[in-house]
């Protein structure tokens, strides 16, 4: 039954793909419209969503402890001591992700029908989108690490294809390549982690792995070499996560990924792909729990990423880049949560973030759609009047992301902050950092909100006349708006259905003893206050634009640093890419051609040279030959006699 979830998007991909390749691609063939191809794609993902819901219901029906549906499709690789089966497994954790992926996927597919209406080859777009959903579902449903890796690289490929969808613009193609290579760096860490698991525990299947770990370590924590191995595994897998979920060292590709069409950014770079890192950590939570150092590293990386991304987002002017950095920042939050041991909170934030971030992106999409591809918020303003429905839904999302109480953002972010403060892995500094980032999030989101919808209209009127997006785009927004608003209630502190639901996979974290219960309410109030403070500051600052200009002039240096993304891209270019280029040039010209070939040809030239010199001995004069003969004779005779005398 689980095979069906995968089958539908695959069939969707094949239909669109073959239809495009055979009928549309060759020169002179008519291109199919976005409606037809869109419907095929959307129905495929919707059916998969339906099956997902059925599976969810079935799971819910099962007894508490044994909530697992598993079917083994076929034996993938069986060689030497290794045997990998293509086994799909759904349990509470992955069912949630399936619903999120398929659900939001369907909404975005419907939205794309409208968004891609005037694109030349929508068939190709929808084929890639379906392929992405297929890979993401494989990632989530995969029962063993290699299968997860199959999905892992599959989504990497689809993000490459979709970012570089408009391939004629070389910049967009470069962005796609950058994304794929950054992911590949991460994937190497993932691979090595997988090998370390196999060599230490002998299996890569999740359930088998869990049994081996429990049986080997049971209660007491591992020590010495065992600890080193487990920590190694966790850190290597985390390197994979940083690659995929855009954390500190490898996050540079996500902002550039905005080159892709907006639905792509919404689906891949907000809701699904970037969260696969969290899914992996959650799936192997029983391993991460064993190595405190790994958790600490994760927490700090998450915290720092959140903070740095937030600082950059503050100064960005492109609407999609602001959202991109905000995503990086929110992902930092999620890893912060996992790092302090509250994986449940992390998963909860994934879900809520998926709702409001997808909504924000789609909202931005409809703004851009209305403003005829204009993405710079400084050239927008006053769109409230022109796009009332978009304004409404974006406002809901804005409130959610700032973390105001009734909305979903508040519950998940607050849970994370509380855990950062209270759990025995958490520490005060991280909590403070998180709080500061929350404030800055509110600040830059409000800035974007004001620039886009409020204030004077800064676009030139006769060229651009904004209009509301068609119903096919707005309907999904409404659904998402509802989810963003109500989504928080599934994880109300102390009575969270979600924690209960994830119980067997992700144990519920109890706050450390030293912290008394009442502190939670106090901190909740503090975080709401901080959010309001951020909003109010942005509102005051950006009411008339002269004041930010002045601020920018005074703090020019800081602005320049933030505007250039802390010069991280330049750092990588200078430190890695250019030196490797120079070294390989040296290797090729220098070593390959100069050293090896010279040696090889050297032998040839040496024999040629000796040939030339010896050849001169053939002077042609009879006398010389005779003397040479005598010489030979005398020497040899002498040697013969020498032996005897």
């Amino acid at each position, binding site marked *: 039954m689980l095979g069906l979830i995968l089958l539908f998007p695959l069939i969707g991909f094949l239909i669109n793909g073959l239809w495009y390749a055979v009928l549309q691609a060759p020169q002179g063939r008519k291109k199919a419209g976005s409606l037809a191809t869109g419907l095929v794609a959307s129905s495929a993902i919707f059916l998969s969503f339906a099956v997902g819901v059925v599976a969810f219901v079935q799971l819910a029906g099962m007894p508490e402890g044994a909530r697992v549906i598993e079917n083994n499709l076929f034996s993938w690789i069986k060689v030497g001591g290794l045997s990998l089966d293509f086994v799909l497994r759904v349990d509470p954790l992955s069912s949630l992700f399936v619903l999120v992926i398929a659900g939001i996927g369907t909404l975005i597919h419907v939205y794309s029908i409208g968004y891609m209406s005037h694109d030349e080859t929508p068939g190709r777009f929808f084929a890639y989108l379906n392929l992405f959903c297929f890979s993401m579902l494989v990632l989530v449903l995969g029962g063993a690490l290699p299968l997860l890796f199959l999905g892992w690289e599959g989504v990497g490929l689809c993000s490459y294809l979709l970012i570089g969808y408009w391939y004629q613009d070389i910049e967009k193609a470069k962005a796609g390549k950058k994304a794929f290579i950054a992911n590949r760096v991460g994937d190497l860490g993932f691979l090595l982690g997988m090998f370390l698991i196999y060599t230490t525990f002998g299996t890569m299947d999740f359930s088998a792995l869990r049994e081996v770990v429990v049986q080997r370590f049971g209660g007491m924590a591992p020590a010495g070499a065992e600890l080193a191995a487990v920590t190694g595994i966790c850190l290597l897998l985390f390197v994979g996560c940083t690659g995929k979920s855009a954390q500190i060292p490898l996050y540079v590709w996500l902002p550039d990924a905005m080159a892709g069409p907006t639905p792509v950014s919404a689906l891949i770079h907000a809701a699904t792909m970037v969260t696969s890192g969290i899914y992996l950590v959650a799936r192997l939570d029983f391993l991460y729990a064993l190595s405190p150092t790994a958790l600490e590293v994760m927490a700090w990386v998450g915290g720092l990423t959140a903070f740095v991304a937030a600082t950059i987002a503050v100064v960005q002017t492109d609407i999609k880049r602001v959202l991109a950095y905000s995503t990086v920042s929110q992902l930092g939050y999620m890893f912060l949560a996992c790092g302090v041991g509250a994986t449940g909170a992390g998963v909860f934030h994934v879900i809520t973030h998926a709702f409001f971030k997808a909504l924000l992106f789609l909202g931005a999409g409809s703004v851009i759609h209305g403003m005829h591809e204009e993405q710079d918020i400084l050239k927008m303003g006053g769109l409230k009047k022109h796009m009332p429905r978009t304004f409404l839904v974006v406002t809901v999302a804005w409130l959610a992301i700032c973390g105001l109480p009734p909305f979903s953002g508040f519950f998940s972010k607050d849970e994370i902050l509380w855990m950062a403060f209270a759990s025995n892995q958490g520490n005060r500094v991280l909590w403070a950092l998180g709080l500061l980032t929350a404030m800055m999030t509110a600040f830059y989101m409000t800035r974007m909100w004001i620039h886009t919808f409020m204030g004077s209209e800064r676009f030139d009127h006769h060229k651009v006349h904004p209009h509301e997006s068609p119903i096919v785009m707005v309907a999904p927004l409404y659904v998402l708006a509802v989810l963003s608003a109500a989504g928080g209630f599934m994880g109300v502190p102390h009575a969270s259905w979600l924690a209960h639901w994830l119980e067997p996979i992700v144990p519920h974290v109890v706050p450390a003893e030293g912290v008394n219960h009442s502190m939670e309410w106090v901190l909740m109030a503090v975080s709401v206050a901080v959010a309001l403070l951020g909003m109010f500051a942005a509102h005051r600052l950006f009411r008339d634009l002269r004041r930010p200009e002045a601020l920018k002039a005074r703090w020019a240096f800081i602005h320049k640093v933030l505007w250039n993304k802390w010069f991280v891209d330049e750092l990588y270019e200078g430190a890695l890419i250019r030196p490797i280029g120079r070294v390989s040039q040296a290797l090729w010209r220098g070593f390959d051609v100069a050293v090896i070939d010279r040696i090889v040809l050297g032998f040839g030239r040496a024999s040629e040279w000796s040939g030339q010199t010896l050849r001169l001995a*053939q002077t042609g004069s009879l006398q010389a030959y005779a003397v040479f003969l005598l010489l030979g004779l005398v020497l040899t005779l002498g040697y013969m006699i020498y032996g005897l005398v």
Partner: protein
Amino acid sequence: MQVVEPWVVLTFAATIFLIGLGGLMLRRNILVILMCIELMLNSVNLSFVTFSRMHGDMAGQVSVFFIIVVAAAESAVGLGLLIAMFRTLRSVDTDDIRLLRE
């Protein structure tokens, strides 16, 4: 009456042989070279005769007979070659035959 030591005769034959060999290398005039070859063959004959006397065996002397025949035939062919060469090169000097080299 004293007797001649065999090695004296053989050394004498060897000196003649080496004079012939040396002459062959020293002289450029092909005629003299041919004569030197004859000298060498004569000294070989002498060695054969001396050895056959020492061994009290006639094999040496019979072989000398055949060697003389061969030497004669060889010098005839040599002179023939010399005439043929002379007809085209108009000289009997080895310096002129340096066309084939390296």
